[in-house]
């Protein structure tokens, strides 16, 4: 299997009034073509920033200090905005955000917005473009496509809007989709419908998905591999089975044991003491060490390198 995306030692910071936020610090992430790769972490860990870097949508105050973001071998960090627009965004990599309401234009009908996306692709007859739009909307299992086309975003529910976003994205036939918390604003029953649309794409296309979320349970339903992110670094990458049944990094272990499952009790749930550190002057060494039960002196001095402890199982912890 070829790697479609390779992030190497990415370090990125933001200048703010309060100081420099070290948002990403040496991120390594490999995504295999055709796989669904989960990126999980808590608020502020840098998971969304990682996604935005790949698609070239970082804010102006972001500063890339070092590293490479290789997409099919080409370093995206060297791309100009124009190159991103022409070669990457939409065409190769698409992104779906948490709030579909703000991704759609409120003053255009679904038809107009869908047609625009399809038209970008290639010049074709108006009629065939409309046919393509209908096919796309059917693909994401939206009911009653005919009347839907004439509607405006505010007339759709959150789940429907999110599926329109997916249809629009498919219209340009990209190789990779970055989904940033796409179901967080949705109800569980709508989330379940949305995940099935994604699963369907997984089974019928060669789409690669980088699925960013804070919800581990969602990842288990659709992902092949998972990378766990903490305070700007990837601490563990493994198959979804290993993350659950054989987590290695102390943070991953705690995280897995803190999610509510069908058989959870208040006693079985683990808590992580303290809270996520601020990334202005983050803890030295391993950024998890102040909250880690296994931490030794060395952990506060040395940044743990990434080690391979099993087949495709990477961990960044000095104690492993």
């Amino acid at each position, binding site marked *: 299997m070829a790697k479609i995306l390779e992030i190497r030692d990415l370090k990125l910071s933001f200048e703010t009034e309060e100081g420099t936020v070290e948002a990403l610090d040496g991120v390594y992430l490999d995504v295999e073509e055709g796989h669904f790769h989960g990126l999980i972490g*808590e608020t502020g860990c840098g998971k969304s920033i990682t996604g935005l870097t790949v698609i070239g949508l970082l804010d102006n105050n972001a500063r890339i200090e070092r590293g490479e973001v290789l997409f099919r071998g080409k370093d995206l960090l060297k791309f100009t905005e124009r190159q991103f627009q022409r070669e990457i965004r939409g065409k190769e990599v698409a992104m779906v955000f948490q709030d579909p309401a703000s991704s759609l234009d409120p003053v255009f009908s679904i038809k107009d917005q869908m047609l625009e996306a399809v038209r970008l692709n290639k010049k074709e007859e108006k009629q065939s473009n409309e046919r393509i739009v209908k096919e796309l909307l059917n693909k994401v299992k939206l009911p009653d496509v005919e009347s839907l086309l004439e509607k405006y975003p505010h007339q759709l529910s959150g789940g429907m809007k999110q599926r329109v976003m997916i249809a629009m994205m498919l219209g340009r036939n990209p190789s990779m989709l970055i989904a940033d918390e796409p179901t967080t604003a949705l*109800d569980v029953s709508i989330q379940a419908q949305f995940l099935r649309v994604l699963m369907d794409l997984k089974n019928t296309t060669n789409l690669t998905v980088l699925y960013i979320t804070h919800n*581990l349970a969602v990842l288990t339903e659709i992902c092949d591999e998972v990378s766990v992110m903490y305070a700007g670094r990837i601490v563990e990458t493994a198959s979804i089975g290993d993350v659950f049944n054989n987590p290695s990094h102390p943070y991953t272990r705690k995280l897995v044991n*803190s999610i*509510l499952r069908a058989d*959870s009790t208040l006693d079985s*749930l683990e*808590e992580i003491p303290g809270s*996520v550190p601020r990334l202005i002057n983050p803890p030295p060494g391993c950024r998890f060490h102040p909250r880690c039960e296994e931490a030794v002196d060395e952990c506060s001095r040395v940044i743990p390198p990434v080690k391979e402890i099993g087949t495709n199982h990477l961990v960044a912890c000095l104690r492993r």
Partner: protein
Amino acid sequence: MSKEWLQVKDLRKHFETPKGDLRAVAGVSLKVEKGDSFGLVGESGCGKSTLIRTVLRLLEPTSGEILFDGKDIAKLGKTHIRRLRKKMGLVFQSPHSSLNPRMTVYDTLARPLLIHGITKNKRDTTIEIVKLLKLMGLQAEHMIRYPHELSGGQKQRIAIARALAVNPEIVFLDEPTSALDVSVQTKILKLLDFAKQEKQLTYFYISHDINLIRVVSNKMGVMYLGKIVEIGDTGTVMANPLHPYSVGLFEAVPDPDPDKKLPELILKGEVPSPVNAPSGCVFHPRCPFAWEKCEREEPKLLKQSDQREVACHKYS
């Protein structure tokens, strides 16, 4: 202690909209016994938040009874409501917006103490606040902080401390952890459980998170479009839900087990609008078992066993 300690009878809360009446709470009856931890689950817009706000008289009920400690609080006047507020606490979903950013933790916690005359002077107030902070696993030094100096989890602990300050008998918790990260969620749940034992409280949780309700409650209800469709012992309902909506809702919850494949989807389509809700059983347009009677006649909550009641024609 009377068994019917908090009892809601056929409570309704309708809102007028240009398109017609929005029946947010459309005839809800439930009982909470002292010492219970009651959990109400439902998806957004099902009326769960409106229900507790109506029970707390933050919203005026359209009709129905709310019996609390033998009195019908649906009909109480303003002065009596204030006395009632002392017995009922409320914790909101987001501590980021429920705490006043211009008030220190001390001010936030001192306010209910002074308003309800629990402490009379500064010394007593401070002592009481330190006790509350300790109960929530915080230190006295947190007293002088402002909300922006606290983490999300700490803020929510302050919001809980504020609700507990007046020694309420029952605390309503509206999605108390859904604005927080998973790593702090456990801490909050454990602190709430500890406070419940310490102060012999009764909890009324509402959440969209089925697994959360499973962990924290001993009695639960499932709400759909303004109505309770199933209610009973948490263990019984969770192990074997009867109402088709409960079955579909529980099935839709992502299962954190990588070996399990996606189950067949039961809940199709979307929740209809509570304005002009479907006739008969409100769930019938989405129900795989619906027949003609469901369209015509509204099912009543009927006892299936000592542990549960279900509102479904399939079980009547």
